[in-house]
């Protein structure tokens, strides 16, 4: 059975491309347009992996990671931050919040699939 991925990004184009790449690798993808929307969708059903942008309206990625890690059902679910920001300071914040990994845009589709298979496999 296909694993279910939640893709959270305020850019519709990014969500579309991430869905395209993940679906080509056999994953099912549900999209959310910001952290708040992502949290609501994560509460509505259980995901096997969450990939989120950092800078978004309403709720940013690191806040979403913290909110998810506070939920028993998402204590160990892999959460990847996929963002334009790549500073060590931001990565440290993501790691402290409980993120599983940090990917800097633009993503290499093959590398992304490799990472996703590794953490969700």
């Amino acid at each position, binding site marked *: 059975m296909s694993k279910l991925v939640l893709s959270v*990004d305020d*850019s519709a*184009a*990014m969500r579309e*491309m991430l869905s*395209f*790449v993940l679906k*080509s690798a056999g994953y099912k993808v549900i999209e959310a347009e910001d952290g708040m929307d992502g949290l609501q969708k994560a509460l509505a059903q259980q995901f096997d992996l969450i990939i989120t942008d950092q*800078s978004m309206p309403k709720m940013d990625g690191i806040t979403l990671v913290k909110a998810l890690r506070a939920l028993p059902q998402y204590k160990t679910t892999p959460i990847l931050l996929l963002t*334009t*920001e*790549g500073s060590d300071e931001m*990565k440290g914040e*993501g*790691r402290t919040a409980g*993120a*599983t*990994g*940090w*990917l*800097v*845009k*633009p*993503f*290499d*589709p*093959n*590398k*992304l699939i490799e*990472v996703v298979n*590794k*953490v969700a496999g």
Partner: protein
Amino acid sequence: MSDYVEATSGPCDDISSLVGRTGAALKSQCVAAHEELQQMQHLLSDATRNLLDCFHAAARDLADYERARNSPEQSSSEQTAARVEVNLLAASQHLQFSDLVGQLLATTEGRVDALLLVSQNMQSLMLALSAARENPEEDNGQFDLRKRAFLEALKVLESRGPSRVRQTSMKAGDAQLF
């Protein structure tokens, strides 16, 4: 943040300091906006070149696929289909320029809005200064009011930091697992 310009000082006091501070802020923000525009140009050029390469490769693969469909070799058409998929995946990397450029545009737009606000308030301040010099007794605090508004606009401008987007090409970013 410098506080050497107090809004309550006299009309002619500190004007040269204010002009100096404003000039520095304007220069810094204009340089940043110029660099962001150049960065956008590089990203767009790089993405366009790479997308065109993907487009031409996919077009060649589709032509091969048509030929392979008419040939008895099944494996040939499968290989061609795999190559088309590789090109589509590669295109998905370069199409991400829209996200990077979108963020850069939002940053530059905010910067230009702040520049515009300073420009508008500077005009008002200069008019108030001129009026205060001509008729100091009729000023009624107008100059101080304009100066406060100008200082607020200047603070907004000075607070504009660099863009979060540092990428200057569509080369793939790092992936790190914690």
